[in-house]
């Protein structure tokens, strides 16, 4: 039913989303932790910075990334100095762009979970002589599981739904940067409506199922006594 290039785009999209989610879990968690617990004045500006991708048009993000990651940009100079070449039109570039684009969707739910938990459980853990790292993994992480779950699911789904930024820094290369949203756009623009319909329906179903899973999970947890 789906053409080979549609399947390729689907596979690529899942790869980008999975990798972005993994990277943001690793980078976003310490950031959320710090934001939840700090009393520094930097907290507010940093929180605003993290939230920027929610309100910025993707064209702004795409334009800056194209310039920054390009051969004359700051990021481009670094990546070239490290022997990685320049990032636009590469799979790595797409992942970097996605990480920026989806950052708030990962950080905010986790930060909220940490804030809701408060300092008390960690103080108790410390009084039982748990090390800070131990307290984090055996107390904070289990208590904040719904936050991590929400962050990961939203980050994954949001990356799958990415379009504007990819359009500007991707270069539409099959198997490298041609993700599903761009593939659908190309189908529509070329009047290939039947192809567009098939792929769009897959995306619609997928997005619905992801959100349904998220709400079912979070709803079930809320009803559990003692959580």
């Amino acid at each position, binding site marked *: 039913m789906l053409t080979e290039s549609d399947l390729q785009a689907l596979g690529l999209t899942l790869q980008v989303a999975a990798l972005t989610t993994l990277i943001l879990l690793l980078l976003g968690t310490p950031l959320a932790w710090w934001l939840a617990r700090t009393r520094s004045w930097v907290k507010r500006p940093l929180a605003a910075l993290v939230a920027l991708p929610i309100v910025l048009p993707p064209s702004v993000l795409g334009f800056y990334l*194209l310039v920054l990651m*390009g051969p004359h940009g700051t990021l481009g100079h670094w990546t070239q100095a490290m022997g990685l*070449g320049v990032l636009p039109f590469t799979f790595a570039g797409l992942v970097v762009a996605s990480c920026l684009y989806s950052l708030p969707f990962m950080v905010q739910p986790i930060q909220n979970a940490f804030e809701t938990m408060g300092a008390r459980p960690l103080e108790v853990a410390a009084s039982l002589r748990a090390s800070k790292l131990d307290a984090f993994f055996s107390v904070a992480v289990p208590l904040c599981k719904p936050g991590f779950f929400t962050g990961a699911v939203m980050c994954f789904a949001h990356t799958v739904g990415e379009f504007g930024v990819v359009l500007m820094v991707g270069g*539409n*290369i099959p198997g490298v940067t041609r993700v599903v949203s761009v593939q659908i756009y190309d189908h529509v*623009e*070329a009047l290939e409506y039947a192809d567009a319909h098939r792929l769009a329906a897959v995306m619609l179903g997928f997005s619905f199922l992801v959100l349904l899973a998220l709400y079912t999970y979070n709803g079930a947890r809320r009803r559990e006594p003692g959580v």
Partner: protein
Amino acid sequence: MKAGARVVLVCLLATSARVLAAQAQIAVAANFAEPIKAVAAVLQKTTGHTLAITLGATGKLYAQIRNSAPFDVFLAANITAPAALEKDGLAKTGSSFTYARGKLVLWSADAARVDAKGNVLRGNSFRKLAYANPKTAPYGEAAVQTLDKLGLTHALSAKLVQAESIGQAYNFVHTGNAELGFVALSQVLAGGQLKSGSMWAVPQALYSPIRQNAVLLKRGNDNPAALALIKLLQSPDIKDMIRSYGYDI
């Protein structure tokens, strides 16, 4: 008395041009972005009419018009899109005409990169080659034909970067993210001179002629600004101006 009447008539005409100044919504192929600004300026100066310009790849604009996008005139980068619109009753029958013949160039923002024969394509000195989506952009189609004729399609497939219009292809090369790109001559010329970088004018034998047709859309039938634009595009002065941007006409 006769002279007096003439003065009154001229005054009346002058004021009516201001009073009756209309606006036309026009869809323009991305390669014509620069010249259309100049055409719009002339139109406004001579008639008072203004143009609201939407740029994009010909195929995209065509798809939008088919889905009742509110345009009065369409300046395409091929002859097939205007012809199809005429055939389907979305444009005035017989109204399409060639306003420009476009030329494809291989361009780099780097002044030393592109040689006069385009041999740079056969070397390994570049990482990315940008071109416009051949499905929707006639200049992208011309780029594909060129690579085919040169026998380089397979060898360069890993280096190709596809832009959604010739405008984005230019942008990819201009920012240096693609070292090379197939763009329209009109995009890299200013006052008949190469603005910056280096280029190879692709021989016309390597791609089918890019005949760019304009057509009066159904919505523009009664729009004075649209009718004035159609007329202006066929005037000798404007043709000279279009030529100065690197087109044949």
